[in-house]
């Protein structure tokens, strides 16, 4: 049967088409368009992804209200450095009273308990870094790092993928070979190496690990965007844009990108959690932030001093570890639901 016969009046396809056209649309669908509506609808009706959304929203709230939840020591003090209670080696258990130079007692704690002195809610690490403070402010670092790395890898991937697909020929060959070379590196090992090399150049901090993860993270996006554009390039609207004499850049940015960027955004949301876990791993292995920085992986690395007595000092792992797990889980649950909704679209992009 030809396409024409399929969509002829009275055929099944035509009826389905009419039904789709005449279907009642809610105000939301009218506002954001059918594609986004399908996504939003799918995500909020799936119980697992609703849990994911709630978890992620909670982290965003914690990050936003970090100064209220765990007030920093003072205006002159870098809030991302965890305040310490002395220098003793032995970790203190949750609930121990804060002795030396405590930061201001948060208002919510005074209201709930009626006490006017501050305690180590989640205990301290060796060297007396306050775990509660680190977990709360670490949320900001996690969100910042996750979104930044994802955004940068998407930008790099889009540039490489778009150039590759649109100009085809030798440029495509070259760029795809380069992509393959980057994919030939074991991700974590390569990122570990590059940050170890960058630490002497930049000093300890978030940047060596961030740059390393970006360097070895953009390839999937390049491949997907290339596939999407190759598909879009043959569409009629691109052809007609070319016929009326639009420039390459205009065709790419105005006609191809808005259509191709869609699966990329979905992919990106699924990667935020992964990048934060990798970042934490690098910190844990000692090529990330400096000691005492409010970063989950860095706090957990203190547990390596106490492998024999982890059951006594469990709070060094459990609290920041749960923060990491929930953070990753939140994004992964959303990503999983999105993947299910978009499965056929994503399949051909890989």
């Amino acid at each position: 049967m030809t396409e024409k016969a399929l969509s002829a009046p009275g055929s099944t396809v035509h009826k389905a088409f009419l039904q789709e056209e005449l279907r009642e649309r809610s105000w939301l669908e009218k506002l954001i368009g059918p594609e986004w509506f399908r996504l939003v609808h799918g995500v909020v009706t799936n119980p697992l992804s609703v849990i994911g959304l709630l978890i992620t929203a909670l982290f965003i709230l914690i990050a936003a209200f970090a100064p209220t939840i765990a007030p920093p020591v003072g205006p002159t003090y870098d809030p991302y450095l965890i305040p310490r209670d002395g220098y003793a080696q032995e970790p203190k258990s949750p609930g121990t009273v804060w002795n030396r130079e405590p930061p201001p007692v948060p208002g919510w704690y005074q209201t709930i308990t009626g006490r006017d002195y501050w305690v180590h809610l989640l205990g301290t690490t060796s060297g007396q870094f306050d775990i509660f403070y680190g977990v709360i402010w670490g949320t900001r670092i996690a969100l910042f790092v996750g979104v930044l790395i994802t955004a940068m890898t998407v930008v790099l991937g889009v540039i490489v993928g778009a150039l590759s697909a649109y100009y085809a020929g030798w440029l495509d060959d070259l760029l795809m070979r380069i992509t393959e070379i980057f994919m030939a590196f074991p991700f974590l090992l390569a990122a570990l190496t590059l940050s170890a090399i960058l630490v002497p150049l930049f000093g300890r901090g978030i940047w060596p690990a961030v740059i390393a993860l970006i360097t070895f993270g953009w390839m999937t996006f390049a491949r997907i965007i290339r596939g999407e554009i190759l598909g879009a390039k043959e569409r009629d609207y691109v052809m007609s844009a070319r016929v009326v004499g639009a420039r390459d850049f205009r065709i790419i940015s105005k006609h191809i990108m808005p259509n191709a960027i869609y699966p990329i955004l979905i992919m990106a949301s699924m990667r935020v959690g992964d990048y934060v876990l990798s970042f934490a791993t690098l910190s844990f292995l000692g090529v990330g932030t400096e000691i005492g920085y409010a970063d989950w992986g860095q706090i957990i690395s203190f547990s390596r001093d106490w492998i024999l007595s982890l059951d006594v000092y469990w709070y060094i792992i459990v609290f920041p570890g749960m923060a990491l797990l929930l953070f990753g889980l939140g994004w992964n649950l959303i990503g999983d639901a999105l993947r299910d909704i978009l499965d056929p679209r994503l399949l051909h992009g890989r």
Partner: protein
Amino acid sequence: MTVYLIRRLVQIPITMIGVTIFIFAMLQLLSPVERSALYIKTTPYNDTAIDAIIRKYGLDDPVYVQYWRWLVGIKDPTTGEISGGVLRGDLGYSRTGRLPVTELIANRLPATLELSLWSIIPIIGGGILLGVVAAIYHNKFIDQVIRVFVTIGWSFPTFVFGLLLLLVLYAKLQLFSPGRLSDAMIAVVSSAGFHQYTHMNTIDALLNLRFDVFWDALRHLIMPIITLSYVVWAQILRVTRSAMLETLRQDYITTARSKGLNERMTIYRHAFRNALIPVVTLGGLMVVNMLNGVVVTEIIFDYPGMGSAAARAAGSLDALAVLGFVLFGGFVLILSNVIVDILYAFIDPRIRLATGGGAG
């Protein structure tokens, strides 16, 4: 098919050259003092010594000259001794490990290989089993439970999961312990009567008929194996589950069912085997996971393999040693990807029977 094979094989050296160029580029970010470890063991301390070494090994020569020298090595004009040269298998000297990098890798390889080989069993077996069960009970309660279970594993940072295992199974319950062997067994293994054929303890123990050593080695492997498996099951499950669902929708399954074949036979004889084809593509991914996973797992369980050596070297900023591991890992990865592709071409009749290179 032949064209496809040839094209795939030709790509190997090209990618490998690309990898060496990129690693060399990373080397250029190091100071000349650090780079001198490519050719000499001792660290130069004063300025004159540094200058002499830079001049002797041409560490300020044009980049392409240095790259070539890095590949083939330098011949000392007076002694005729060649130092350096990646193609000669000389990756430089690890100043924190106090060993040539190649030797470091060779020493650590058997332990990692042993861990990886043992882990493959639960990773593949468990992942496929979970995927098939999830597909059979599609969207039922069991399916949901399995998917939540593996998604949690996937979201777990490997090091957090490993540390929690240590907390419960070692610190609390004293069931298993970190390391590779207990002290008593190390004495046995290093004694004269025990032949170390492969340097993989479990296999050596069986060959020497020392079952106490075998049991001890296996006990030390259990926590790393659980860690390595749990965090990657999600990947295998996802592929197996969707492949199985896809297969269960095929006409020949309906035919099998309608001719009265019982459900177990239908799934095992007709669906399962065909569903396994796409799972083969995961082979490459598994190698990546393994190379990434052992870094963290070995360091946490104090297991003396390549991963922990690489992590320690990185932690003490011994870039040359880590670069050696990356180079090695990269080559392993390239080779395994090619093997997987070829294997896949052989298994899948659609590719095998396609004439010419249409499968690329």
